[in-house]
């Protein structure tokens, strides 16, 4: 339901009544084929929202090329016809599909649902009203979103970086950070938007790639690149790409002369007032909750934080204040793509828990007629040539293609359709297949990437194997890209049809692969992440085996007192342990480790070994790695020799116990980034800035007379944690910035500890006499992570943390199917992010475990035993570890050599094996050597 908004949510968890108002689209989604003829003819141009007003769109439009659903819509405020009845109406005239409906009206829907997920996102801060940056006044001051469009190949300048004012190439660009973030004077957004540092670096690097010689400077307060591999990226930006970083707050942007150049004035770290000149200034705008989302929050009756984000608990990060209503993404605080994707899955897990009794209640299975066996038949090819309205037929001479197709070998039937994908044509194709006894089908139409599934269903409905079909892409790859040359396009269409016919001639009936699933999960690690994932799966109804190395559940959280939002960790962990122990679906294996693994997705057999050396084999369909991390044991800052130098974890304990040394101490120095963000461990441990700030606040609150110093490199109290940083400054905590090359020196001086650090404000070395020095130590990966990784064939990254399948799109999946990751094992993170990730991993595992079998596409590698001589070249190249080398059954008592076996459940059909095999011993069904060779031959036949 697009163009729709929720107007009312009544009822309670498990049984909500939701009113939805659907605004008119004025385009019939069933009929629109997104050909774009309407938009071409539409005479009305307005600013494109997608291009952040750097370009124009028409009144009838799709938001962007990859929009889902890919259907046009009319903007009623811009449309001439809708504004003035009787006028214009060009789109209606050119739409061959008859999809335009000017009489479309608003519709009201009432839905009965068990749970609601709020995922409305954010809006970028609009800097127009703030004035100081000259946005909206000087054309060469743009926002980061606008720069994104200028750098995009599909943007207004096709990726060329030019100045909006005069189209001149840009030589010097400045990025101003924290525009609309960490700023209560100009915009009342006190929080950090969390993502802008990283995107500014990315834009600077990409801009330099686009315009060689471009100078880029990023003006910032703290670089907050706290995500996985972000610090490495920043280092590369600095050292390899030459992006310049300047720590300061720019006072304002002024024009320099009348030529469009811009002047920035700022005070540098040495306290000098400086001026610099730029062609273009990019404002790194922050994220905020839009007004309509505030209204939605009101409608949903959920609580918001002081920063206007949905209020959630750190131990239930996707649960709002109203039971049954969940969130994901930026509605619950500014966050980046990986975290939003994680929360998307986490919300699904939370809903699955709530609604598990109703699972599959509304599911219906389609039925198909029995498949005809065509293996003994000669090929009888049917070709259907689509006009796609005028999209193909307007350029390509489809009649000529039709006539040509009829002359191809084995072709017994050819037909043309106005729209091959329409319901009536589908039914007609079914009829023709049956009438004409067709056993191979070519659809000459659009792209298989969108339409192959549809036509496969058509074949199934006709009782023909769905793989006996090939599409010739005569629209996207032909009529749309050769509009100026109909003759050549027609010739190419014939070639494409000939190629498809040649390939399908050698096509075989393929059976989809069915893999049985053991509907149980194995969770490795009994910390917060492991327990959360295990509990969620158990509450969804699955049996869970939880393996914990130590004799106690809780993991690193046992060392923590409060989350950043102030929730009491021991209480929450105790609750979690209770729930886990009381759940009879969960079997806990303490003092055990995984020592052996066999099998694959849906069918793992893991061997666990207990302290007593006894082993057990656990069968499971999916596995979650939540083995956690360790606190770094420092060797620096005389940690080993001075008693008053302690780690943050030790300090928490001492502080909690009101130990005499802490009680009496007057002067505390926190040193950040101990073991983080330096050579050999170039990553941010993410939690330490907030942790130290919290400790500093507690010290100050207990006794305001204490002197508390925090020596930091970049204060990374990201997102809404910024409020803590502000509170600490208000309480008089002194923050002193140091650089990696000028680390503080810690020495014992009788009863006091001397801490020497360069003071950037005073421009001189500063000596602090301290009673206690607290080292904010890094989070390290588990030493045995790589070993466990090897067992499950899942990788660790350069630092030793587990490597997910895709940083953004598959943040909790491993590239090995059926295995997932959560918590510190993946990367350092605070509790609420571990919990969200654990829920996400549970949701991903449940997509497998909820079925007794999974059906996989039949495009998989297969062995041709006549040719395979067991050379095993393919075994090494297979990225999915799907191929194994086995002994052939012995013949006459003689060893018969080796042969490969493909595990279809693990195979993704990529064909690296086929590309590597020198003997034609392995092939991919649906893309065999014979089929592709036939296609090549056909391509070059004329």
């Amino acid at each position, binding site marked *: 339901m697009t163009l729709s908004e929720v107007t009312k949510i009544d009822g309670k968890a498990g049984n909500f009544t939701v009113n939805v108002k659907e605004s008119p689209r004025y385009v019939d989604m069933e009929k629109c084929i997104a050909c*774009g003829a309407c938009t071409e003819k539409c005479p009305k141009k307005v600013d494109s929202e997608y291009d952040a007003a750097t370009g124009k769109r028409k009144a009838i439009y799709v938001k962007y*090329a990859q929009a889902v659903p890919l259907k046009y819509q009319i903007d009623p405020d811009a449309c001439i016809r809708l504004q003035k009845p009787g006028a214009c109406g060009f789109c209606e005239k050119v739409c061959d599909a008859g999809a335009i409906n000017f009489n479309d009206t608003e519709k009201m829907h009432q839905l009965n649902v068990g749970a609601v997920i709020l995922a409305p996102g954010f809006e970028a801060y609009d800097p127009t009203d703030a004035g100081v940056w000259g946005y909206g006044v000087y054309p060469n001051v743009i926002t980061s979103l606008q720069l994104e469009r200028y750098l995009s190949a599909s943007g207004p300048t096709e990726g060329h970086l030019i100045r909006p004012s005069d189209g001149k190439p840009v030589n010097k660009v400045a990025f101003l950070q924290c525009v609309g973030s960490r700023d209560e004077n100009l915009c009342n957004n006190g929080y950090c938007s969390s993502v802008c540092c990283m995107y500014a670096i990315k834009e600077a690097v990409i801009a330099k790639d686009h315009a060689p010689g471009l100078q880029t400077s990023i003006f910032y307060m703290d670089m907050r690149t706290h995500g996985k591999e972000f610090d490495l990226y920043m280092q590369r930006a600095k050292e390899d790409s030459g992006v310049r970083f300047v720590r300061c707050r720019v006072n304002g942007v002024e024009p320099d002369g009348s030529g469009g150049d811009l002047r920035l004035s700022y005070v540098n770290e040495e306290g000098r007032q400086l001026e610099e000149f730029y062609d273009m200034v990019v404002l790194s705008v922050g994220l905020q909750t839009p007004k309509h989302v505030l209204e939605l929050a009101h409608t949903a009756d959920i609580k918001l934080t002081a920063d206007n984000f949905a209020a959630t608990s750190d131990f239930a990060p996707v649960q709002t204040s109203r039971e049954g209503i969940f969130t994901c993404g930026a509605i619950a605080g500014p966050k980046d793509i990986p975290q939003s994707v994680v929360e998307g899955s986490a919300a699904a897990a939370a809903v699955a828990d709530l609604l598990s009794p109703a699972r599959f209640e509304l599911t219906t299975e389609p039925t198909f007629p029995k498949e005809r066996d065509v293996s003994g038949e000669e090929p009888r090819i049917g070709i259907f040539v689509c006009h796609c309205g005028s999209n193909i037929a307007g350029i390509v001479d489809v009649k000529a293609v039709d006539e040509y197709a009829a002359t191809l070998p084995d072709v017994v039937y050819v037909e043309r359709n106005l729209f091959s994908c329409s319901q009536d044509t589908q039914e007609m194709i079914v009829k023709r297949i049956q009438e004409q006894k067709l056993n191979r089908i070519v659809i000459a139409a659009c792209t*298989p990437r969108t339409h192959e599934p549809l036509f496969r269903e058509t074949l199934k409905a006709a009782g023909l194997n769905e793989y006996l079909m090939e599409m010739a892409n005569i629209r996207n790859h032909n009529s749309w890209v050769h509009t100026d040359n109909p003759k050549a396009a027609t010739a190419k269409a014939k*070639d494409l049809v000939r190629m498809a016919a040649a390939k399908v001639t050698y096509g075989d009936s393929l059976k989809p692969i069915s893999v049985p699933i053991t509907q149980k999960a194995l969770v490795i690690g009994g910390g917060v992440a492991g327990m959360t994932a295990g509990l969620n799966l158990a509450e969804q109804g699955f049996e869970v085996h939880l393996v914990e190395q130590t004799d106690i559940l809780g993991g690193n959280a046992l060392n923590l007192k409060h989350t950043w939002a102030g929730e009491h960790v021991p209480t929450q962990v105790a609750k979690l342990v209770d729930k886990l122990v009381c759940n009879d679906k969960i079997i806990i294996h303490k003092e055990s480790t995984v020592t052996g693994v066999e099998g694959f997705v849906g069918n793992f057999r893991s061997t666990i070994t207990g302290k007593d050396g006894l082993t057990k084999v656990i069968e499971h369909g999916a596995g979650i790695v939540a083995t956690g991390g360790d606190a770094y044991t420092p060797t620096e800052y005389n940690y080993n020799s001075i008693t008053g130098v302690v780690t943050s974890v030790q300090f928490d304990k001492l502080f909690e116990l009101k130990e005499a040394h802490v009680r009496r101490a007057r002067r505390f120095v926190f040193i950040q980034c101990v073991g983080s963000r330096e050579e050999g461990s170039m990553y941010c441990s993410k939690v330490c800035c907030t942790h130290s700030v919290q400790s500093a606040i507690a010290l100050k609150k207990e006794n305001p007379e204490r002197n508390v110093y925090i020596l930091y490199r970049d204060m990374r109290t990201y997102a809404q944690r910024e409020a803590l940083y502000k509170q600490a400054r208000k309480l008089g905590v002194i923050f002193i910035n140091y650089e990696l090359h000028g680390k503080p020196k810690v020495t014992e001086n009788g009863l006091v500890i001397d801490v020497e650090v360069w003071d950037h404000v005073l421009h001189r070395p500063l000596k602090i006499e301290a009673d206690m020095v607290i080292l904010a130590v890094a989070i390290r990966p588990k030493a045995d992570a790589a070993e466990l990784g090897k067992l499950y064939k899942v990788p660790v990254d350069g630092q030793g943390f587990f490597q997910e399948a895709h940083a953004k799109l598959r943040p909790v999946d491993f590239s090995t199917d059926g295995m997932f990751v959560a918590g510190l094992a993946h990367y350092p993170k605070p509790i609420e992010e571990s919990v969200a990730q654990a829920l996400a991993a549970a949701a991903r595992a449940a997509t497998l475990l909820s079925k007794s079998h999974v059906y996989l596409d039949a495009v998989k590698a297969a062995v041709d035993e006549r040719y395979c001589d067991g050379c095993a070249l393919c075994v090494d190249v297979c990225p999915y570890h799907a191929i194994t080398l086995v002994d052939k059954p012995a013949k006459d008592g003689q060893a018969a050599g080796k042969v490969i076996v493909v595990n279809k459940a693990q195979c993704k059909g990529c*064909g*690296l094996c086929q590309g590597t095999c020198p003997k034609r011993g392995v092939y991919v069904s649906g893309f065999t*050597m014979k089929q592709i*060779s036939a296609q090549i031959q056909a*391509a070059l036949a004329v």
Partner: protein
Amino acid sequence: MSFEPKIVAFCCNWCSYAAADLAGTARMQYPHNVRIIRVMCSGMVHPEFIMDALSQGADGVMVLG
């Protein structure tokens, strides 16, 4: 008549084939003498295919992935 090279392009279903689809959606015009063969990964392209194409008259072969 001027020389018109024949080009065979092997395109990965997940990237370059999709990109060629998008070029169509964006109505980007390009020369018509390329014939695209869809593969499930550019790694699937056996060296023999490239030899086949060249020996059968292709003037150029692209493997895009």
